[in-house]
C-alpha cells in the first residue's frame, strides 16, 4: 500500500477501463444510448419534469396564445422566484429524508418581521432583512435541536412550528393585519420592476456556457493526465454550445419584453450555489450520505447532528428569504403572507422537480424546474380565468403524478441495482 502510484506508464489500458464486462459509452452515439439505458433503469434525473413541462406548455398555449408570450413568461419568472427560493431549502431537507412543513409560516413571519422593523420601527431595510433571515435560521436550529436531542420527528416538530410561527406572524402584525411597504423603495422595486439590462443577461448566459466548458475541459484534462477515461473534447464543446445557444435564445425572447428579473437572477444564483455545495463539497457529500444511510454515515465519522442542523437552518433561512422576496413582490406584509398554498407549492416544487421523498437523492435544479411547472399551471389557469379551486386540483394531481414517478423510478432502480 505504500508503493507509489504507477500511473501514466504507457499503459495500453485506462485505469478505469480494465473490466471488459462493462459497456462504455464511446462518442456521441454512445452517450445517447447510455442516456437511454440510464432512463430505463430508473435514473430519470430531470427527464420527467421536462416532459411534463412540455406537455403543460403545449396545452396552455393551445388554449390561450398569450401564455407563451414574452410578457407572460417574464411575469412567470417574477412569481417563480419567491416560492422557488423556499423550494430550494426544501430540497436540502428532502435530501436527508426529512420534511419541513412550516416553510410557509416561516416565510410569512419573515415578511411580517421586515414590515414591522422597517416600516413601523424605522430600521434600515438591510438590517430588517438580515434580522428576518437570522430569525429563520433560529427557527431551523430549534427543529434540529428537537430532532438531535429528543429524537422528535421533523414531521411533528415542523407541524407544531407551522402553528407557532403563524401565531408569531399574526401577533407581530397586530390588529391592523397588514403593512404596506413603500412603493418607491429599492426592495419593492426589486420584487416588482428591476430587470437586467440586455447586455447583462446576454453576458450571464455566455458566462454560464464558458463556465460549463471550462469545468468540463479542466476535468477531462486532469482525468486524461491521470490515466482515467475522460469525456471527449467534441462532447464538451457540443454540450457548452448547445447550452449557450438555448440560454441566449431564451434571453433574446424575454428581452423582447421587459427582460430577465433581477429577482429571478438571484434565485438562479442561489440554485447554482446550492448545486455546487451539494455536488462538489464535503458537506454536500455528507448530506447525500446521511440521507442515504444515516448509520453508515455516522460510522464513517460524519457528524450527523451537524448535518441535520445545517440543513434545517438552511431551509428555514431560505424560507425566510423567500418570504421577504414575496413581501417585496406584493409590496406588503400581511396576515395572508405565507399561508394557503405556499407551503405545499414549495414542497411540491422540489418533488416535481425530481428530488426524492425517500432521501439521499435530489438536485438543486429540481427547485428551479419544479417551481416553473407549478407557476406555469397557476399562470395558465389564471389566463383562462379559471378559479383557484381548479388550480389546487391540478397542482395536486401533478404532485401525485410526480410522487408516483418517483416511487416507480425507485422501484426500477432497485431492480436494476442503482437504488
Amino acid at each position, binding site marked *: 500500500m505504500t508503493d507509489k502510484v504507477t*500511473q501514466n506508464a504507457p499503459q495500453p489500458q485506462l485505469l478505469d477501463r480494465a473490466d471488459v464486462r462493462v459497456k462504455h459509452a464511446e462518442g456521441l452515439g454512445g452517450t445517447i444510448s447510455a442516456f437511454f439505458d440510464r432512463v430505463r433503469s430508473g435514473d430519470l434525473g430531470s427527464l420527467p419534469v421536462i416532459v411534463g413541462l412540455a406537455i403543460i406548455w403545449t396545452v396552455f398555449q393551445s388554449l390561450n396564445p398569450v401564455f407563451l408570450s414574452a410578457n407572460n413568461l417574464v411575469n412567470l419568472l417574477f412569481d417563480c422566484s419567491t416560492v422557488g427560493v423556499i423550494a430550494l431549502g426544501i430540497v436540502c431537507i428532502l435530501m436527508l429524508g426529512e420534511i419541513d412543513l412550516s416553510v410557509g409560516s416561516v416565510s410569512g413571519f419573515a415578511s411580517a418581521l421586515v414590515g414591522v422593523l422597517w416600516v413601523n420601527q424605522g430600521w434600515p431595510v438591510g438590517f430588517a432583512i438580515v434580522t428576518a433571515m437570522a430569525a429563520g435560521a433560529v427557527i431551523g436550529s430549534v427543529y434540529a435541536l428537537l430532532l438531535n436531542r429528543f429524537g422528535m420527528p421533523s414531521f411533528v416538530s415542523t407541524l407544531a412550528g407551522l402553528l407557532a410561527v403563524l401565531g408569531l406572524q399574526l401577533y407581530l402584525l397586530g390588529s391592523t393585519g397588514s403593512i404596506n411597504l413603500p412603493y418607491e423603495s429599492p426592495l419593492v422595486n426589486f420584487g416588482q420592476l428591476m430587470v437586467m439590462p440586455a447586455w447583462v443577461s446576454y453576458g450571464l448566459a455566455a458566462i454560464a456556457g464558458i463556465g460549463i466548458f471550462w469545468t468540463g475541459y479542466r476535468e477531462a484534462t486532469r482525468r486524461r493526465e491521470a490515466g482515467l477515461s475522460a469525456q471527449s473534447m467534441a462532447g464538451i464543446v457540443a454540450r457548452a454550445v448547445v447550452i449557450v445557444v438555448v440560454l441566449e435564445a431564451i434571453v433574446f425572447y424575454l428581452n423582447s419584453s421587459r427582460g430577465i428579473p433581477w429577482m429571478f437572477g438571484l434565485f438562479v444564483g442561489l440554485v447554482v450555489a446550492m448545486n455546487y455545495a451539494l455536488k462538489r463539497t464535503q458537506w454536500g457529500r455528507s448530506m*447525500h450520505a446521511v440521507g442515504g444511510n444515516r448509520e*453508515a454515515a455516522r460510522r464513517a465519522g460524519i457528524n450527523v447532528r451537524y448535518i441535520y442542523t445545517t440543513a434545517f437552518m438552511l431551509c428555514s433561512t431560505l424560507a425566510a428569504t423567500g418570504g421577504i422576496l414575496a413581501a417585496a413582490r406584493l409590496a406588503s406584509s400581511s396576515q395572508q403572507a405565507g399561508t394557503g398554498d405556499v407551503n405545499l407549492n414549495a414542497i411540491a416544487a422540489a418533488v416535481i422537480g425530481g428530488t426524492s421523498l425517500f432521501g439521499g437523492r435530489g438536485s438543486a435544479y429540481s427547485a428551479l424546474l419544479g417551481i416553473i411547472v407549478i407557476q406555469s399551471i397557476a399562470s395558465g389557469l389564471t389566463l383562462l380565468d379559471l378559479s383557484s379551486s381548479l388550480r389546487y386540483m391540478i397542482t395536486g394531481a401533478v404532485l401525485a403524478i410526480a410522487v408516483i414517478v418517483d416511487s416507480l423510478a425507485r422501484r426500477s432502480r432497485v431492480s436494476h*441495482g*442503482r*437504488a
Partner: protein
Amino acid sequence: MTGTSQEPAPARELVLSLRGISKQFGAVSALTDIDLDVHAGEVVALVGDNGAGKSTLVKVLAGVHQPTSGTITFKGEPVTLSDPATALSLGIATVFQDLALCENLDVVANIFLGKELSPMRLDEVSMEIKAWKLLNELSARIPSVREPIASLSGGQRQTVAIARSLLLDPKLIMLDEPTAALGVAQTAEVLDLIERVRERGLGVIMISHNMEDVRAVADRIVVLRLGKNNGIFLPDASNQELVSAITGAENNSVSRRASRRAQAQESQP
C-alpha cells in the same frame, strides 16, 4: 476451561488493551468482563458462535456502542470512544459485518466518505485514482467506481468496505467476517492483505467462522462464548479444543459428528 493460554512473547508494543469490558442491551448482557490484548504486528482472531458478542465487541471498539463498564487502553493511553469519529481519528478502522455503505453513493464516494480530499472543492480525480489503487491492491473485480454501491455484488461491496478501512493508514484494523461473502481467490487476497498489514506493524482483529482461514493468518485465537472470554489459543490448537471452547462442551454436535464418522470408517473393512 481456559485452554492453552500461553501467549507468544509480547515483544512488541501493546496497541490495544481491554479490561473488564461489559455491554448491556437492556436485559441482555451481550458482553461480560471481556479482556483482550492486541499487539502491533499481531493478528488476533476472534471466534465464537453466533450471538457470542463478537460484533458487539467490534462495535464498542469502533465507537458505535459505548461499553457499560470497563476500560479501553489504546497505545498506552486510556481512551473513551464516544463516537465513530473518535475511533477513526485515533486510527481504529473497522469493516463492519453489515458493511455500513451508502447505497446511493458510488464506490469512490463510499471509500472517501467523511475523509474527502479538499472539502470545499472535492478532488474527484485524485480520489478516483486512489480508490483504484486500493481496489487493485485487493485484486478487486469492480467494473466501475462511478456506479452506485447498489449495483455491486456482496463480495464487491465487501472489498469496497475493506478498501475503505485501509484508506487512513490506521493503527488497528478490525474485520468482522470479512471473507463471508467472498469467492476463493478473493478470500486468499484478503488473507494475504491481512498478512501484509501485519508486516507493516498494524494490529489486526479478525472475526471469522472459517477455522482454516483463522489458523492460516492468526497469531492468537481468542474465543468468546455467550459474551464472556472462553480461552485463548495458538493457531496450532486442535480443532477439537477450539470447537469445545466455542460451543462450551466436550460433548457437542461437532465432536459427536466427528466420532460418528470415525466409527463409520473403522467399521468398514
